[in-house]
């Protein structure tokens, strides 16, 4: 295969994988604290529209990205307040967050549909970025791509090499025991949820500022839900998240190439691939019940109310 085609395929895989990696990293931290936030899709959508609107209005992509993170975090705050302070059912609240997010994003974005913004600028290191194949791949990406890796490695380091990470895992494993020792379970979960929201917001911003550089209704197209499935796929370990995100990014891209190859399979059927793959992968991972139980945070989805 021509190296230019290869590079373009690899680049497109990176850009399809990055939003998944960002959102799933955030959700992984949230779930590790014992909180199940099914509203990733909604938080991503709000992030995508906020990021786009701010970038479009101010001309500053940096401001847009920061605003997207804040937007996602604000959504997560709503979720946390309902589930942590008001003890609402986490599954139902997550769904409400998604329904609300779809509506909110559609309303906020109504005036922006069809307007383009400049794509997030890629890194340019003279000499390195021009190298064949590795140049554009390693030294020509935009900031959010590098950040997605940084966030993943930072999360791994935080979770397994710091006391704060140990406490977060402990809260997810047994909130009662953590509370008995005196750790502020609720505050820790708020923090984890806000991080998850901010990461979802960034994932959304990546879609509207880099992946397509424009905004459209429901542009996440289920990626938030796929990110949720990726956390299960990774059995709550960050290392495997990278593999999962790039696997799914690859499948998404494969879909486009099957279409261009003109094999004669209808486009709609090929578009089902990522969703069907999600189902298949979920089945393969979940079928080992022991492994899921061993790795899933024991308090995932369970409400916590300190008596007394």
């Amino acid at each position: 295969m021509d190296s230019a085609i290869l590079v373009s395929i690899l680049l497109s895989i990176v850009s399809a994988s990055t939003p998944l990696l960002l959102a799933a990293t955030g959700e992984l931290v949230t779930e590790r604290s014992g909180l199940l936030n099914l509203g990733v899709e909604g938080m991503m959508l709000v992030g995508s529209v906020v990021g786009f609107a701010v970038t479009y209005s101010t001309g500053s992509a940096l401001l847009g990205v920061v605003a997207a993170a804040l937007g996602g975090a604000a959504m997560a705050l709503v979720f946390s307040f309902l589930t942590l302070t008001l003890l609402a059912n986490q599954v139902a609240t997550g769904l409400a967050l998604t329904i609300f997010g779809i509506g909110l994003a559609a309303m906020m974005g109504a005036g922006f549909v069809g307007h383009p913004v400049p794509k997030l600028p890629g890194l340019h290191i003279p000499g390195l970025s021009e190298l064949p194949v590795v140049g554009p791949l390693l030294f020509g990406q935009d900031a959010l791509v590098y950040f997605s890796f940084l966030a993943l490695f930072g999360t791994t380091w935080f979770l397994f090499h710091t006391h704060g990470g140990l406490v977060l895992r402990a809260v997810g494993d047994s909130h009662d025991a953590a509370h008995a020792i005196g750790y502020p379970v609720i505050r820790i979960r708020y923090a984890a949820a806000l991080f998850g929201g901010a990461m979802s917001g960034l994932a959304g911003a990546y879609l509207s500022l880099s992946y397509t550089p424009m905004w459209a209704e429901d542009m996440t197209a289920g990626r938030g839900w796929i990110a949720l499935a990726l956390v299960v796929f990774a059995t709550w370990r960050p290392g495997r998240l990278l593999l999962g995100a790039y696997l799914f990014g690859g499948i998404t891209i494969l879909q486009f190439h099957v279409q261009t190859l003109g094999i004669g399979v209808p486009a709609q059927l090929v578009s089902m691939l990522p969703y069907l793959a999600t189902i298949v992968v979920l089945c393969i991972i979940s079928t080992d019940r022991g492994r899921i139980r061993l790795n899933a945070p024991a308090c995932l989805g369970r409400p916590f109310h300190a008596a007394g």
Partner: protein
Amino acid sequence: MVRGWPMHLEIVARGERSKLWTYLSPVLAIVLTLVTAAILFLLLGKDPMTALKVMWLDPLLTKRGFAELFVKGAPLVLIAVGLALGFRANVWNIGAEGQFIMGAIFASGVALAFHDVTAWPVWLAMIPAGILGGAFWGAIPAFLKLRFNANEILTSLMLTYVATLILLYLVVGPWKDPEGYGFPQSRMFGDSANSPRVIPGTRIHVGVFAALAVVGIGWFVLSKSLLGFKLKVLGHAPRAAAYAGFSTGQLTWLSLLVGGGLAGLAGMFEVAGPIGQLTPALPTGYGFTAIIVAFLGRLHPVGVLFGGLVLALSYLGGEKAQILLGLPAAVTKINQGILLFYLLACDLFIRYRLRLVVPGRKAA
């Protein structure tokens, strides 16, 4: 809960669940949603009172409008009754939208296959086809959950995307109307494939009465039958269900088959009634809105009936507001999301009460 505050509210568990708040919570949630909507309209530069009137009152004032409430409410109620049974048993079928679409597709298949037949059995045959389509789509997550332990929330949702793509494929491919000027939609169904209208001058069709019947059956199952009891026990305490000898597998199958079947039936009535053909515009989020209906109706079939009417009104009001006030269509969805937020928040009072903590009563 927060230390060091001069005076604050503390959340205290109640000894027993509050019956009063079970019913008061949705009412309060609706009131709070209206207040929030008024503020939202103000921010959008509309007169809040006019906007509220247009959205929540005007649709009820004409006979036709009032009838539309039931036409819109019927699919919501049909789907939500099925979801409520499942949610009771902690079976989280989130993919009712996909099951709705599959029901519509199966029913359309029958209608298109017998397009030239003018006898009423065509319509009759579409009913089981719709139920079958939805139940089939609901059976997949049930099978995957029981066989592979795969989370039904994610699988049923992924299947919704798949169903939408199947619908798209059909209307641009094999089922595309040859005389449709290239529009992606099927032929209009024959008259024999349309639900009989019941009340002249309105669009009220047989589906509305089917929804009412399902409410009655659902109520009976849930409150009188052993089956309903099993679902409730499974939802409250899976270990107690195992102790009693109630089969989780059987109840999971049942929840998803019934939920899917009813969603499929709703899809069938939608294509055979108001729409009359298969179009890409079929998925309007009824399957997701029905989740709100189920919660608003306290997962109780009779409550679902009221919840369905409230949410149907929000659709009608949203359309009116779009036309008359130029409000964006998304306002409907936002309102629905906010309603569910408030409802979940107000449900706090069912199990807990607030206690004002006044400083000065310091311990030790």
